[in-house]
């Protein structure tokens, strides 16, 4: 592989990989359908607000 090809690949695929990864994570994390579940998880570690019987 020539140096120019390598640079071309790095400059095209690199940003696509990085931005693609970011978009996938952002969509998964910020999907409104997950909001209630995330609220529950965030509270699950608090002793008196777990929403479940400790036994």
């Amino acid at each position, binding site marked *: 592989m020539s140096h120019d090809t390598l640079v071309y690949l790095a400059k095209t695929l690199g940003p696509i990989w*990085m931005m693609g*990864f*970011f978009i996938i*994570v*952002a969509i*998964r*994390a*910020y999907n409104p359908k*997950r*909001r209630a*579940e*995330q*609220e529950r*998880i*965030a*509270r*699950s*570690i*608090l*002793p008196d*607000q777990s929403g*479940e019987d*400790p*036994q």
Partner: protein
Amino acid sequence: MTPAGTLSRNERQIAFGLSVALSVLGFGMAAFAGKGVMAVHGAMALILGLFLVFRVGGRLYEGAPGIERHDRYFDGPTRFGVMMTLVWAIFAMGIGVWVSALLYWPEGTPALPWTSFGRLRPVHTTGIIFGFGGNALIATSFYVLQRTARTRLADAISPWFVLIGFNLFCLWAVSGYLMGSTQSKEYAEAEWYADLWLVVVWVVYFTVYIRTLARRHEPHIYVANWYYMAFILVVAMLHIVNNLAIPVRWNGADSFTIWAGVQDAMIQWWYGHNAVAFFLTSGFLGMLYYYLPVRSGRPIWSYRLSILSFWGIVFFYIWVGSHHLHYTALPYWVQTLGMTFSVMLLVPSWASAGNAIATLNGAWHKVRDDATLRFMFVAAVFYGLSTFEGSFLAIRPVNSLSHYTDWTVGHVHSGTLGWVAMIIFGAIYTMVPQLSGRETMAWPRAIEWHFWLAVGGTLVYVVSMWNAGITQGLMWRAYDLNGALSYSFVESVQAMAPYYLIRTIGGGMFLTGAIVCALNCYATFRSAPYMAEPRDVPLRPTPAE
């Protein structure tokens, strides 16, 4: 009850077998090496193995604990880990204060090889990063893992193996440096057999973590566990690749790295900066995401942001190591890559720091009244400050002023004292009463003393090093009208004297606080029987009605 008393008969037999195996391994190493560092290390393993043989063997046939032990979390290893954290803190911070004093009074160095700065410096860094930080990470990870998964650790032997094995690695490392043995890789100075031993320990650690997660009673894996797992997994990868070496001979400590030239430098700093990222940041963010909400009684401000910043930190950090090699033989574009990712890293870092601070909104009265929560708040603030500083220092022209100066030392200590140590102390003060079946520490007022000693010590240390570093950097690049250097190197060293003295005082304050913490923890553990009545228990599967 003793630690061995919490094991079943079968588990004690396994522990006994492992202790015998360690003794044989140590004896074999000592006999095979015959003399030198490796022989001493073999003897150390032999002594530890024999100690464990007697410790476990003496209780081999004592009454086994009842089945009800499965109704409580397995916190014996965590308790031991907390104690080792504090032992290493006092030892390694003590060495740090001593060597910093020697920089002010160099004539005070005794005429003994093992007391030279070059040998004591890695004892300080290894003792702090691995001894203090590593024990805290392992101890809290077992605690957090069980509480967030609402289940007991998958087995009772592996956690002990991990903690005892890890501490043996730390002991081998620092005793080797004192004897003049080093791989000459910063933060990876331990010799080849110690590195292999750590791989075994780490594989067991990761396995017990995954096995426990597989048994969880929570459908979701709480985000703190993601950070802890990133820590375990990536540290294994970094450790193995950077420490690939060929021993000079099988019965000696010396070895040669397989990497050569600039590749060696790149691999070393890929490791070195990711030691900061995955040893000194990722696991500690796991701590922050668990202990801060628990202590403040408020859920994390944005759970979704914690996920986004997790992937941001993991993705960006792995590329930044080359910013340690600006203006070197490393290709220019690789330096630029490291610089660019370092600047981008500020986004997920500040997202984490901001998320932690926003969590405290509505709980500021607790921050005011509770020194433990204040430790965590200060940790989040210093995390934000030192990550900003890190991104800034990675920029090439800034680095041309800061590199090789004490600014770097100041930056590292704003991270380790202000962020890492503060979150450890916050976690310890939350955990130790819980482990002792108490509401509070034995001496609640002492936490307040410790807090102000720690904050004061950190500020004195960091501000003096900022001044020292910028002064050095400016003196080194000052030219007179003829184009000659304005100052000799020795003049720049002499100008450091007041800063080095102030830095020693700051370090001494921080050490004093750590001693107060250790005494407080000792008093708290002493006040309760071993394995006191638990204040929280795992979920137990109940039969369907």
